[in-house]
């Protein structure tokens, strides 16, 4: 009995911790000034490269800005970027998957082929081209990352749409005499899109990571934005002298990924339980 309870409790601590972390993030997104009184942009060249201390919990960066403060203020932009990029990726994926799944044989074949092409086309090239065409800033970054990662999601959602399309309950609905439009609306869409909720939560962190790679290549969010990926990539030159500049932004990204994954998994379990 107690063992079982403990097991259940154990299973719940993970999601609880993750949810707690995400709640803090949410506060940072909505009202960062609640969490810190420091100005994230104010430079203090004399205080540059200060190691973590009571005064600067996570140390300072090359311009003497407090890293913790910048992480808190950066949450908004990073998460906004992550959320919009994953939204864009899923939008593309769902549109293509629905066209391929419901548009007949030619459309199905076409989408399969398109997915192959998208996979063969490196994300990096797409991203660079986006940034070249659309200029610098957060919007091109979102578009680049969103389009770049759409291929993987398209494949997932496409598989899902195909599975749902051929599911016996869709056939049963057809045998009941429902119109195709109604079947798409009532059965195919909800069931095909259901797993996307989980994909979306898990994808946010992944998108932040992606944008960090672009920062690495000099195409990140424009300064002085405290975007996590940019902070992380700026720190890499100083890794030997100021490890905290790299470690903490990285941790913020990893914890966000972990938290969204754990919460996503919990949502999935709950949804599965709801459907069973």
């Amino acid at each position: 009995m107690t063992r079982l309870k403990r097991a259940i409790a154990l299973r719940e601590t993970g999601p609880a911790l993750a949810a707690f972390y995400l709640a803090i993030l949410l506060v940072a997104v909505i009202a960062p000034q609640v969490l810190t009184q420091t100005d994230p942009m104010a430079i203090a060249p004399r205080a540059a490269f200060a190691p973590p201390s009571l005064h600067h919990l996570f140390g300072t960066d090359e311009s003497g800005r407090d890293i913790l403060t910048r992480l808190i203020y950066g949450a908004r932009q990073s998460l906004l970027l992550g959320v919009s990029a994953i939204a864009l990726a899923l939008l593309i994926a769902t549109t293509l998957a629905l066209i391929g799944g419901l548009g007949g044989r030619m459309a199905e074949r076409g989408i399969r082929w398109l997915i192959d092409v998208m996979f063969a086309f490196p994300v990096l090239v797409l991203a660079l081209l986006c940034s070249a065409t659309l200029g610098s800033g957060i919007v091109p970054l979102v578009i680049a990352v969103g389009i770049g990662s759409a291929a993987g999601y398209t494949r997932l959602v496409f598989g899902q749409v195909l599975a749902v399309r051929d599911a016996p309950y869709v056939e049963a609905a057809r045998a009941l005499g429902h119109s195709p439009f109604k079947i798409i609306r009532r059965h195919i869409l909800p069931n095909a899109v259901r797993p996307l909720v989980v994909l979306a939560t898990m994808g946010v962190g992944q998108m932040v990571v992606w944008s960090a790679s672009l920062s690495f290549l000099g195409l990140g969010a424009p300064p002085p934005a405290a975007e996590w990926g940019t902070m992380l990539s700026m720190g890499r030159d100083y890794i030997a002298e100021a490890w905290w500049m790299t470690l903490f932004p990285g941790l913020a990204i990893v914890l966000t990924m972990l938290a969204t994954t754990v919460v996503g998994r919990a949502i999935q379990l709950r949804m599965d339980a709801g459907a069973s």
Partner: protein
Amino acid sequence: MTALSRRTWPFGLIARKIARRLANAVLVLLAAASLAFAALHLTPGDPVTAILGGGTQTPSPETIAAARHEYGLDRPISVQFGLYIARLASGNLGQSFSQHMPVADVLRAQGPATLALMASALLTAWLLAVLSIVFAVGRRTTAFARTTETFFAGLPQFWLAILLLWALGFELQIFPPAGNRGLRSLVLPTLSLAIPLGGFLARVMRDSFDLALHEPFILTARARGTPEWLIRLRHALRHALLPGISLSAWAVGALVGNGVVIEMIFSRRGIGRELFLAVMTHDMPLVSGIILFIALVYILAGIATDALYVVVDPRLKATRS
């Protein structure tokens, strides 16, 4: 399916399937090449000025005009595209603008390093994933392994790379911090790629593995007295391989195409860096050559995946090959 049909395999059918597969591959390559062409021509920026204008230079107008003419950039776009496709069709990848050498030579020089890194990362990732899956027995260990895998899967490759470089390259000096020399210099980049991928693989395979462990045939194996580790390794794991294999096919393409950051951090040569440079200078022949290379790797990975599928699950022989 009788024994007979297994021996007298329909060869015409295989030929047809291979032909279809090849046709599809060619179409994919063609599309990738056209996309590369369109993308580079639709984005603003003149490759010639990028090539001649790096740093502090003052090319004369005649020099610029000559270069533009040399690369055919003064012709109408449609003509350029036609020539481009015709050239590709004849198997000529062209001459890189920015590297002053044939694209094929660039690929020959940089391809092996990238493929070697990719292969070692993939192998290591599989090793990590399989070890974690097979040897995490018991509720608590499994829960721990699951969390670790999720954590690993979430690690950004480049962050891990920097931390590894710092800890093992700079501070402890166990591994050389950079370069392409020998196996030792392969360790850190391999780990940076393999740990997240291994976490991913394990996460994908663990679900199937757990499902397989509850299949009746596992009970049969237990009932005949087979030791537990053998059951996990020989019976359950094999059923978990398929999702791992398809993930690997995707990973191969991604590792080649997006390896630039790792290649940069560890100052390794490779396709990724070359691609980055090429895109930066709008070096059309080189970009499309590399895209074709990646597409080809991806296609080959797809074919290898299908073959592996059949090896792992011979029931698929009928539907694939």
